[in-house]
């Protein structure tokens, strides 16, 4: 494996924070200073080299060979190139990422892709709550880019999401798209309870929902041109990770009519 390689020395017993890794790896003197990057979150100072065997140089490729749900901030601020993680990751992966590709060959904790602006995040396993959501105090959540999750995800995905696309091959938890202002959440496995509370704009696409809010109005089944564009865009962007193309007709529910109601839920099992 070329580029920068971090190989986990031993299983972790406390959380570490890799949110400074990308910036440090891009620094001119990365080869000599990277191992001393502070990554600890507790009382005892922890440096990157204490946890990982660091080899290679910065470049456009970073590989984390061995990770766990205790590793937070993976891929935060990624602005190009490729990062590959073998194993699970903790919270805040791909936070503020702007470009490039983050491949997580495992599952992710909460707040995956929070503040994502661009690039592609692919997770083979599942992801926790608040995927692509805004952090407390932030005006917007995810504002661009594409996230693909092979399994299911937790609750309130896309809270205050502005732009971008989330594709979930499994099930999506409750209240997906809460307060969403744009973008698309697409699930092959269907939505949990009450998708789209206070949804202003944006599109939620899925086979079905466990329960629909009363503030969504049924507009009937339609063949919509924009879905053809979306199908093509995802096939081009994601290749084999793209979801199954949508059927010719989907049932459109407009809402949330408790707010401006310019959003929509599109149910494929009409």
């Amino acid at each position, binding site marked *: 494996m070329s580029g920068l390689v971090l190989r986990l020395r031993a299983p972790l017993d406390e959380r570490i924070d890799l949110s400074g890794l990308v910036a440090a790896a891009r620094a001119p003197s990365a080869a000599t200073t990277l191992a001393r990057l502070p990554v600890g979150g507790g009382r005892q100072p922890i440096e990157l080299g204490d946890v990982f065997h660091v080899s290679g140089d910065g470049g456009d490729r970073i590989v984390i060979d061995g990770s766990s749900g205790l590793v937070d901030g993976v891929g935060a601020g990624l602005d190009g190139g490729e990062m590959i993680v073998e194993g699970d990751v903790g919270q805040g992966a791909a936070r503020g990422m702007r470009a490039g590709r983050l491949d997580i060959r495992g599952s992710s904790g909460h707040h995956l892709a929070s503040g994502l602006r661009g690039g592609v995040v692919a997770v083979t396993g599942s992801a926790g709550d608040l995927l692509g959501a805004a952090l407390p105090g932030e005006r917007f959540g995810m504002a661009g880019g594409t996230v693909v999750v092979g399994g299911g995800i937790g609750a309130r995905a896309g809270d205050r999401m502005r732009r971008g696309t989330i594709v979930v091959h499994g099930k999506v938890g409750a209240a997906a798209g809460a307060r969403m202002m*744009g973008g698309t959440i697409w699930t092959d496995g269907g939505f949990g309870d009450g998708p789209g509370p206070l949804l202003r704009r944006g599109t939620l696409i899925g086979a079905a929902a466990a329960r629909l809010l009363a503030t969504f109005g049924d507009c009937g089944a339609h063949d919509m*041109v924009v879905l053809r564009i979306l199908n093509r*865009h995802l096939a081009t962007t994601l290749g084999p990770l793209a979801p199954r193309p949508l059927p010719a007709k989907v049932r459109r529910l407009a809402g949330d009519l408790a707010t401006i109601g310019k959003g929509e839920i599109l149910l494929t099992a009409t």
Partner: protein
Amino acid sequence: MKVNGVAIDDTFAEAFGMSGTGLVITADTAKWARIAAETMCGFGTSVIGCGAECGIDREVPAAETPDGRPGVRVLLFGFSPDSLLPQLRNRVGQCVLTSPGSACFNGLDAETTLALSAGPRFFGDGWQTAKRLGKRRYWRVPVMDGEFVIEDKCGLTTDGVGGGNLLLIGSDRAGLLETTEAAVAAIAKIPDVITPFPGGIVRSGSKVGSKYKGAVASTNDAFCPTLRGATRSELEPGTIAVLEIVIDGLTSAAVASAMRAGLAAATSIGTAKGLTRISAGNYGGKLGQHHYHLKDLLA
């Protein structure tokens, strides 16, 4: 010089720099995509009287369009970006938005852009919504047969060329028309060019100015066969008709290729249908930035 019996004048076509843009119009069927495109290109023959010069560049297979439906690529040319924008807005708003099942996308990748959706999207009266996918933004405007989808911006080039031309001169009007049609068909195969006049052919070539105040152009009497004995004619005895092909292109190279294709098609037919001579229109070389010498295009 003669090619296959056809005299080729030692002259050149003089053309002008233009601003241009391209659109891809799709619909449920190729028939309706073409109807929308043809309607939009109507009354788009000359910037002098129509505000823009428009035409269909080519049909776009469904596999190449953003929405996977059959499409048609349309090119529009104007004097400047400022003059092109209102033409774009009005033509899309009145002719594409209104056409059943249509959608309208950018058809020219360029760094500079025009606000394609500014205008048509406001037909949505507040119900319009945008969907950004990658670097492209699409507007969805609710209409009575579903949604009209229009891309937010389209590419703009200021390297376009308007007014490439060929003058086909003959002794048989019907035969000359057939030969000219064959030349237009050959030009249609060249990408990035249009022939904006009816069927790609102009029978009323013009000269600059007029005896009448306010008219910027008037009939090119030197090429009118019925005035051959009354004016300083450019036509030899026996000439019955002159037909012109005007070519606009996104690049000078595209216009040159189109003229070359038209010349080749016409000379390959030769004199069999009455074509006697091929010339080109110019203004002495002092007005247009682009000169296309016929002898160079035969090489």
